[in-house]
């Protein structure tokens, strides 16, 4: 099931070429079918069942395909495949007629595949692989419009931040695996107590947190997410509502049973989550672009989720679960609505929009419903979540104040979008505004209504979604009971307070925005700018290091390399008294001696050759003679390869040497000749002595016997050399041919680089200097 989106991705370009934007209807199936399959499991999971499966894959590395569907995984899988289906439909209309539409939908589907992989895989390494796949596919999505500088910057920023975090995560997961000996998440949870008591537990947790925080855009890594808004709107909607950014929250929830009781967890998560909530909300107030406003509220929401997961008693987890679900619905809807407004009215700037309600009634209704959920108005999913949050935080600590302030700011933003854009006097928009076609409207309307519908059937919602999910997070059965109908209690009063506060902010939004802008201008520096400084600093540092290590003269490199070779061969032999005994003179057949003589003649010819080409060919003679010697002494495969390599190296050397702008003959002062000659003799002597010493050691035939014994039985082949290459050590060979391919690519790139004009890539102050050199 997992691979259905990949299949869709493979056919996407073809289908779009054949059917135009209507291909989206078919492509959406590749997510809708998995959605139905996942939905079919709801009953089992709600009854407390866990669906597992998988097979061993590369057991030596502990990498197995294992999947596990419990309440947490299933809810995520449903959100990803369900919202993903709507997103594919939506992008069918949003990018109608765009030449890259097929590619775009293919990226979306690949991304969904990676996300589904993250949430259902139970194996640690597979989780990491899917995790990084989401980084890479989102890089492709954010940078989709790759001709714009801002899109490229957003893309590589997201990749660097989340990818870097991903590496920390890998280290953390490997450490955890080492501590428990488990390679699956279930194993980790089972070994939870052993991990918490280990002295490395804190270090592992910090690494995992770095991974989760970067992915879920927690302060101070929040900056990449708004920049990722450079992606086309369907991507933003998907990234924000259901997927990528929630992967970090997913991971934290998943690992809650392992770390939940640790002090570090209980301090770090609420702290960073709370700060993120406030910073995100505050930055959102400053924005005028609809997408950016929503993006910063996502940052805030993620902060809220992390904070709740960190506080971590039963109520808080239940609140997090509800909020996560409600957020996916209303944020997905609002992002798509922002896209509809942009698409149909031609602008996303809230100060340039107004009075669209009459022209776009359906959009207006959907926006209003979604905003009610976002603002936590009674009878909406968001309200339930907020009630549960306040019920969890009634102790009146800092976290509660942060939650109220954050929620009030999100209320203001949500209604700013739903009201300011649609009410008031009509404003002239760049395009003649009207509701979008079915493909465009289906997603936002459906998601918005879902936000109301699920709140009207709270019993079913809790039975099938929130209770199983909370139980999965807590590792113990939990029952969520909240309804969306207000009842007088402390949480409700806090809700009212939030709404009043939010309404006040909304009334004075323009003034608040101006004040926020001034304040941020005074602060000036922020992590986003810090990122640029970090990148240019790295580039500059690398440039200085490279100039130090590589002065750019081949003769220096070669001299150094050969001196090091000579020393490393000769020094140990003399220092440790390991010199070989003088070998006995072998009894050579006459033809054997003849080929050795040819090799020597070839060498002499190299030395006395007048022109470079002659020298290269003479070197070839020597190589061929050696190849024949291999053949004579029973290594036909080696000899065969040697012949080919020798031929090709003569060709390549000839090509390179004739390309270099040198004299045809090579005249050098006597001093150079003596110096180079000495190095050459030292190298030759070193190799000779070393090899003589090596063959003096009695030969261990264990491997030889193993291979010749088993090659026919196990690998069905009589040629041991080839059997080793393609079967016994196939994985090595795979690595080697990958290297060969990359080498080919690199050489191509290097040569192109020399012939193509220099183009400016980064804003790098050193570049001019480099060009002058």
């Amino acid at each position, binding site marked *: 099931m997992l691979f259905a989106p990949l299949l869709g991705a493979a056919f996407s370009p073809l289908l779009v070429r054949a059917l135009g934007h209507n291909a989206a209807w078919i492509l959406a199936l590749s997510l809708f079918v998995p959605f139905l399959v996942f939905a079919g499991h709801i009953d089992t999971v709600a009854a407390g069942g866990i669906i597992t499966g998988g097979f*061993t894959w590369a057991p030596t590395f502990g990498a197995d395909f294992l999947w596990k569907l419990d309440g947490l995984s299933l809810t995520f899988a449903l959100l990803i495949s369900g919202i993903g289906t709507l997103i594919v439909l939506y992008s069918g209309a949003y990018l109608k007629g765009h030449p890259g539409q097929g590619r775009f939908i293919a990226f979306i589907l690949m991304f969904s595949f990676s996300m589904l992989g993250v949430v259902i895989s139970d194996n640690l390494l597979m989780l990491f692989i899917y995790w990084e796949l989401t980084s890479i596919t989102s890089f492709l999505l954010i940078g989709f419009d790759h001709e714009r500088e801002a899109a490229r910057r957003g893309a590589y920023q997201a990749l660097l931040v989340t990818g870097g975090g991903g590496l920390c995560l890998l280290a953390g997961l490997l450490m955890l695996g080492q501590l428990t000996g488990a390679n699956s998440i279930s194993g980790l949870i089972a070994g939870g107590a052993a991990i918490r008591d280990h002295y490395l537990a804190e270090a592992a947790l910090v690494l995992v947190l770095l991974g989760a925080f970067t992915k879920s855009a927690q302060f101070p890594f929040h900056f990449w997410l708004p920049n990722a808004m450079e992606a086309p709107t369907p991507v933003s909607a998907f990234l924000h509502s259901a997927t990528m950014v929630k992967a970090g929250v997913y991971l934290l929830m998943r690992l809650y049973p392992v770390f939940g009781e640790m002090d570090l967890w209980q301090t770090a998560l609420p702290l960073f989550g709370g700060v993120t909530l406030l910073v995100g909300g505050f930055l959102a107030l400053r924005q005028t672009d609809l997408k950016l406003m929503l993006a910063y509220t996502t940052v805030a929401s993620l902060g809220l989720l992390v904070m709740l997961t960190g506080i971590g008693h039963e109520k808080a987890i239940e609140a997090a679960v509800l909020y996560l679900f409600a957020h996916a619905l209303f944020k997905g809807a609002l992002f798509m609505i922002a896209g509809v407004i942009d698409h149909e009215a031609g602008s996303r700037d809230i100060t340039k929009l107004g009075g669209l309600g009459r022209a776009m009634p359906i959009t207006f209704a959907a926006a209003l419903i979604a905003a009610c959920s976002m603002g936590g108005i009674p009878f909406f999913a968001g309200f339930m979540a907020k009630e549960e949050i306040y019920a969890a935080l009634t102790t009146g600590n800092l976290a509660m104040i942060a939650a109220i302030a954050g929620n009030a700011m999100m209320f203001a933003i949500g209604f700013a979008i739903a009201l300011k854009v649609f009410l008031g006097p009509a404003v002239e928009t760049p395009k003649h505004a009207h509701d979008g076609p079915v493909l465009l409207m289906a997603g936002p309307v459906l998601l918005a209504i879902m936000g109301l519908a699920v709140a009207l059937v709270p019993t079913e919602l809790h039975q099938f979604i929130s209770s199983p999910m909370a139980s999965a997070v807590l590792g113990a059965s939990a029952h969520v009971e909240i309804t969306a109908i207000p009842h007088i209690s402390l949480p409700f009063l806090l809700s009212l307070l939030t709404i009043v506060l939010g309404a006040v902010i909304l009334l004075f939004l323009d003034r608040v925005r101006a004040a926020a802008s001034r304040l941020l201008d005074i602060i000036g520096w922020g992590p986003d700018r810090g990122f640029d400084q970090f990148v240019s600093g790295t580039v500059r540092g690398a440039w200085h290091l490279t100039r130090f290590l590589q002065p750019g003269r081949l003769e220096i490199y070669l001299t150094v390399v050969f001196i090091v070779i000579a020393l490393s061969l000769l020094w140990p032999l003399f220092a440790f008294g390991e010199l070989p005994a003088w070998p006995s003179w072998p009894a050579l057949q006459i033809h054997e001696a003849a080929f050795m003589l040819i090799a020597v003649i070839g060498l002499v010819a190299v030395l006395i050759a007048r022109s470079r080409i002659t020298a290269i060919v003479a070197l070839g003679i020597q190589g061929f003679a050696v190849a024949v010697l291999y053949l004579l002494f029973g290594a036909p495969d080696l000899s065969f390869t040697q012949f080919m390599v020798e031929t090709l190296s003569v060709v390549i050397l000839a*090509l390179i040497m004739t*390309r270099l702008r040198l004299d045809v003959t090579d005249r050098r002062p006597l001093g150079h000749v003596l110096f180079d000659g000495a190095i050459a003799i030292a190298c030759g002597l070193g190799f000779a002595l070393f090899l003589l010493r090596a063959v003096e050691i009695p030969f261990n035939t264990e491997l030889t016997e193993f291979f010749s014994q088993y090659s026919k039985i196990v690998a*069905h082949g009589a040629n041991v050399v080839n059997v080793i290459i393609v079967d016994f050590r196939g994985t090595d060979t795979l690595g080697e041919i990958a290297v060969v391919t990359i080498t080919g690519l690199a050489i*191509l790139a290097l040569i192109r680089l020399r012939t193509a004009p220099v183009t400016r890539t980064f804003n790098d102050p050193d570049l001019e200097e480099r060009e002058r050199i």
Partner: protein
Amino acid sequence: MNSLILRTLAPVITLLMIVFSVFVTLRGHNSPGGGFIGGLLAASGVALYALAFGVAAARRMLRLHPLTIAAIGLIVSALSGMASALYGVPYMTGLWFDIGIDLSTVMSFDIGVYLVVVGAFSSILLTLEETEDE
């Protein structure tokens, strides 16, 4: 290179070398040979052709970009390793199918090696030779 003898013989020799390289690759499992050697042989054939008729002609003969060939080879090899997943055995386990002649994932792996070597080396050779022409 403007030599009548070379120009007359090159197509024949190249063809022979490529046929022979396929032969060497396929028999590799039981006698001297294999994908790596076969690939080098074929690359030499391409080099010879390019020497006789120029790089552009050699590229036309290959039809695909050499690196595309290498990439296809890499994918073939990687997939040969992954096929084991369908049978629930560890990665890179050789699978054998006897349908009159022996077919195996090991063989497709070796073919992948062959393609990578042909592609990568042809690419290197042709690019070097091309820039020399300028």
